[in-house]
């Protein structure tokens, strides 16, 4: 069947234009457009007076990005110059903006800080951002309060969106969803809960309550939507297991604290008993539920902290600190925290779009398989196997709902005038686990009729940055204010799109089982190998975590 190309509404592939190997993780699963800049983290802006520190830290999350100017517009100009793997729709990250305006200090924003942050957000919107993302478990977003977030949300227009990795997805999940609704109500802007979930065994089942809260909010006129990925495990930086106070002052201060005497006892106490306002991921997942995914030196990957503790003949807290210190914080984890009925309930909600939340390309290691398999998994597991969604509805969530929610005019539909972003797949065989598979999850994929993966050899314009949303978008426009009320929008109309910067000519991957078209180095086979290793490790860990 032919569908509009899938839209990954929660990507961290901001650096995809900059890495040497094209990021094939997304195109292999049928994605033609990525919304990047999620979780409060974008590549810019930065404080020019702190550029050295900014670019010293940047590669631990976004490898491959060269030294570029401080404005959000500078990042987009450089990305435009290099060209895109998929169509690119950027959000500006609140954490990045906050660090640029007031460093990574653990304090509430003062009036002057808010003025500076509002100016930076306005500048990013002007440059082409689709909205503002927040990551309220991560420093420095974790140090913000609701008033600060409302003040920033009001910079947005009707056409933009405020997204949030909310303050708590476990014990505080209900209050955290309520905070996002409050931000929507007070700012009058559209708000969006990223990767909606209920984490930690004590909180399993709470999605019933959180979905009721957002439904009631919609009923009272607040535009709230959400996205999710269909896995029991989450994934993030390993340093997110540390209490918020450890992050005061940024990475150098954090490393200093991890070297201080008494740190192990302090962490053991904090993780055992929790601290107010802090998302205690280690407690939610348990030490045998935290799998090291990627590290700078790759030594610790593929083992849980419980296993590493045995290897190091110590306890998991010391193992955690040793990994963070030895890798200088450049480490990510996969954490098993969710329950299947919550996943199915959230997926069944008609306002849920789909996002991979895949970590940035170029980190290597054994990343969470959501990076490679989110969209095929929805189609294979939740449409074909369990029937949680009808196929046509699943496709709507991956295409037109995503486009309408994020203001991606002219995308997400097969209709005259819409971008020719198309994916062909077999609903009877589509599956997420590439390990040992003879077939790709999807048959072919084109963006703007430019062949990304197999399929028609004809070449049209290449993937590009999606034009920023306009309050009154011409032609094939989505309907931002009404996405949560109306499921059907009128047929798209033709609109003009300017030509993009040229990329090196496409070549085909040399592997007989992979006809991925790539620019520059042929990375598709490498990526498939990584995926196979990653899925295998994840599968083992998931069985143990059950």
């Amino acid at each position, binding site marked *: 069947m032919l569908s509009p190309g899938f839209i990954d509404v929660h990507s961290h592939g901001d650096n995809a234009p900059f890495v040497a190997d094209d990021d094939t993780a997304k195109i292999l699963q049928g994605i033609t457009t990525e919304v990047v800049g999620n979780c409060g983290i974008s590549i810019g802006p930065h404080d020019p007076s702190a550029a050295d520190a900014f670019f010293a830290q940047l590669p631990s999350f976004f490898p491959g990005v060269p030294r570029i100017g401080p404005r959000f517009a500078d990042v987009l100009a450089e990305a435009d110059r290099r060209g895109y793997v998929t169509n690119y729709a950027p959000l500006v990250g609140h954490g990045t903006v906050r660090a640029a305006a007031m460093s990574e200090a653990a304090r509430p924003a003062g009036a002057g800080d808010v003025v500076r942050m509002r100016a930076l957000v306005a500048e990013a919107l002007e440059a082409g951002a689709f909205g503002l993302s927040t990551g309220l478990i991560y420093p420095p977003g974790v140090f913000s309060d609701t008033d600060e977030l409302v003040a920033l949300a009001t910079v947005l227009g009707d056409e933009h969106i405020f997204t949030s990795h909310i303050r708590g997805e476990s014990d505080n999940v209900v209050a955290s969803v309520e905070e996002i609704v409050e931000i929507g109500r007070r700012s009058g802007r559209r708000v969006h809960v990223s990767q909606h979930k209920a984490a930690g065994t004590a909180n399993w089942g709470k999605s019933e309550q959180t979905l009721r809260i957002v439904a009631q909010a919609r009923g009272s006129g607040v535009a709230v939507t959400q996205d999710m990925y269909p896995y029991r495990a989450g994934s993030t930086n390993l340093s997110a297991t540390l209490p918020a106070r450890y992050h005061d002052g940024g990475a150098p201060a954090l490393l200093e604290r991890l070297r201080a005497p008494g740190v192990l006892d302090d962490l053991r106490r904090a993780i055992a008993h929790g601290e107010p306002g802090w998302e205690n991921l280690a407690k939610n997942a348990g030490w045998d539920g935290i799998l090291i995914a990627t590290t700078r030196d790759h030594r610790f990957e593929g083992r849980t902290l419980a296993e590493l503790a045995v290897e190091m003949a110590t306890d998991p807290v010391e193992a955690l600190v040793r990994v963070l210190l030895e890798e200088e914080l450049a480490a990510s984890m996969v954490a098993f925290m969710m329950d299947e009925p919550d996943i199915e309930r959230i997926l069944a909600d008609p306002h849920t779009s789909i996002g991979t939340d895949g970590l940035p390309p170029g980190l290597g290691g054994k990343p969470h398989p959501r990076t490679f398999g989110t969209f095929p998994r929805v189609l294979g597991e939740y449409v074909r196997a369990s029937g949680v969604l009808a196929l046509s509805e699943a*496709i709507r969530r991956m295409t037109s709902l995503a486009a309408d929610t994020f203001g991606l005019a002219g995308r997400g539909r097969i209709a*005259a005038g819409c971008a020719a972003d198309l994916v062909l797949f077999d609903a009877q065989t589509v599956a997420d686990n590439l390990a040992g598979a003879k077939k790709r999850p999807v048959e072919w994929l084109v963006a703007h009729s430019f062949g990304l993966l197999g399929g028609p050899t004809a070449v049209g314009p290449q993937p590009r940055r999606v034009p920023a949303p306009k309050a009154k978008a011409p032609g094939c426009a989505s309907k931002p204010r009404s996405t949560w009320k109306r499921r059907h929008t009128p047929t798209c109309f033709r609109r003009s*799109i300017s030509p993009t910067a040229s990329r090196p000519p496409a070549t085909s991957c040399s592997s007989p089982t992979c006809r991925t078209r790539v620019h520059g180095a042929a990375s598709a086979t490498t990526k498939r190998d990584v995926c196979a290793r990653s899925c295998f490790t994840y599968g083992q860990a998931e069985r143990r975590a059950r």
Partner: protein
Amino acid sequence: MRSDSLVIAGALVYDGEGGLPTVADVYVADGLIERVAPASDAHSGPR
């Protein structure tokens, strides 16, 4: 790609709006979908 080229014939097309699929030919021009027409029997493209 030339203007108005047939990118796929006789495909089972889900338009993204959540409705039932239709069997159609999809034509593309300049990176945009030019038209979606009911499948003509002359084509026997992939489905």
